[in-house]
């Protein structure tokens, strides 16, 4: 069975992550309830004629994909696997609004064509002229991790050598209104640096696209090895520590072997105790980091955490502003990621230094 490596990264987020030589050296502090991703110059990556029908999620994904391919020194991949919680939300909203506004008449084709969840994977394939395996996972906040499992299995079995894998979600104006109504988005603005102190319901909502080239061949650009991934649709709060320990046991590791645990805390007072159970429990003596104060929350925000962990392992440094506690460590070897959203779709991912 072959090992699986992260050979490159590409990220579009609410931070200036679209330049791979800039690992969180400039941080944007927000004070809001919804934070859009920063736009790179899309025209540098997508011909205007192709871009005119693309909503932001598609454009972000194509740019992140191209950055990842460039970082890996590749022009083509064997497969494209995309994860998205909500898909092409803006075109979905546009299409549905048109139905309502025009009494089910005068429906134009573009928003409908572009509104499906797998539009992103399709558009990336068209841009790259990639005729290989193309799959989209839509599974709430474990959509990205579902992609990881698929890619890992294919690469381990040598069914593919290089796979483009990514997570993307975009903000939709109407969806934001609905999420506010059901307390999924905070009602009062929160400063990024005070996210975990907010003590209120809901999250700071956002969007982004994080893409990676995974390979079963290590190369000079390699960031880390993907050792293990597991997803759990539901977990009781009192079962989280046991599940984490069992996950590590599958790879002959214990809590003490972990150098850093990267957590998906999003400041929602109703669900952050899943994380605090771990941080004040079995991982109390382990260095801890979080990232959703930088990226905001969305169904594939864990792909930003994955981007962060990959960069930490490659750079062997941890930016101070993501630290959750004051432990120090001289070398990062094993990083464990844990994420959940609204108490569902939990995931553990284990990355290792190469």
């Amino acid at each position: 069975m072959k090992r699986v490596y992260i050979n490159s990264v590409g990220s579009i987020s609410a931070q200036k992550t679209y330049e791979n030589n800039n690992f969180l050296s400039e941080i944007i502090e927000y004070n809001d309830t919804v934070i859009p991703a920063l736009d790179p110059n899309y025209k540098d990556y997508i011909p205007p004629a192709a871009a005119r029908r693309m909503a932001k999620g598609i454009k972000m994904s194509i740019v992140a994909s191209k950055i990842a391919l460039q970082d890996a020194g590749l022009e083509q991949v064997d497969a494209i696997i995309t994860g998205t919680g909500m898909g092409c939300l803006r075109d979905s909203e546009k299409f549905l609004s048109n139905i309502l506004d025009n009494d089910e008449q005068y429906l134009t084709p573009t928003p409908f064509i572009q509104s499906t969840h797998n539009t992103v994977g399709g558009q990336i394939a068209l841009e790259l002229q990639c005729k290989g395996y193309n799959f989209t996972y839509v599974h709430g906040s474990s959509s990205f991790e579902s992609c990881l499992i698929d890619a890992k299995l294919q690469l381990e079995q040598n069914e593919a050598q290089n796979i483009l894998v990514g997570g993307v979600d975009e903000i939709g104006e109407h969806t934001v209104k609905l999420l506010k109504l059901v307390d999924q988005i905070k009602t009062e603005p929160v400063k990024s640096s005070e996210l975990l102190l907010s003590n209120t319901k809901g999250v700071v909502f956002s969007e982004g696209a994080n893409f990676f080239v995974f390979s079963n061949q290590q190369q000079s650009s390699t960031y880390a090895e993907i050792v293990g991934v597991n997803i759990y649709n539901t977990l009781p709060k009192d079962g989280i520590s046991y599940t984490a320990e069992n996950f590590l046991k599958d790879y002959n590791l214990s809590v003490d072997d972990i150098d850093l645990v990267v957590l998906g805390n999003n400041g929602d007072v109703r669900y952050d105790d899943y994380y605090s159970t771990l941080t004040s429990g079995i991982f109390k003596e382990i260095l801890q980091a979080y990232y959703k104060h930088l990226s905001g929350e969305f169904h594939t925000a864990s792909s930003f955490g994955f981007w962060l962990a990959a960069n930490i392992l490659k750079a062997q440094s941890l930016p101070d502003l993501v630290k959750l506690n004051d432990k120090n460590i001289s070398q990062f070897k094993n990083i464990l990621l844990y994420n959940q959203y609204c108490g569902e779709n939990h995931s553990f991912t284990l990355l290792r230094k190469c």
Partner: protein
Amino acid sequence: MDALKQELKENIIEQLNLEDMTPADIADDDMLFGDGLGLDSIDALELIVMLDKNYGIKLTDPKEGRTIFESINTMAAYITEHRSK
């Protein structure tokens, strides 16, 4: 007729997301498809819906579209003759 042509150019730019284009960039006799503006079959569907919604014109024969959508001049002439709103 000139006002209609200007309106058509503005609507085409908006409906078809022709970013970076202004009405002044489209000449009245420019080919809309092929070598001219480079519109494609999806744009043709958008234009058919636009004729129906804005001018009450229902195109039943797709072949008609080829001549009607040749340029802003041909579109304006057809709309002037057939519009119901």
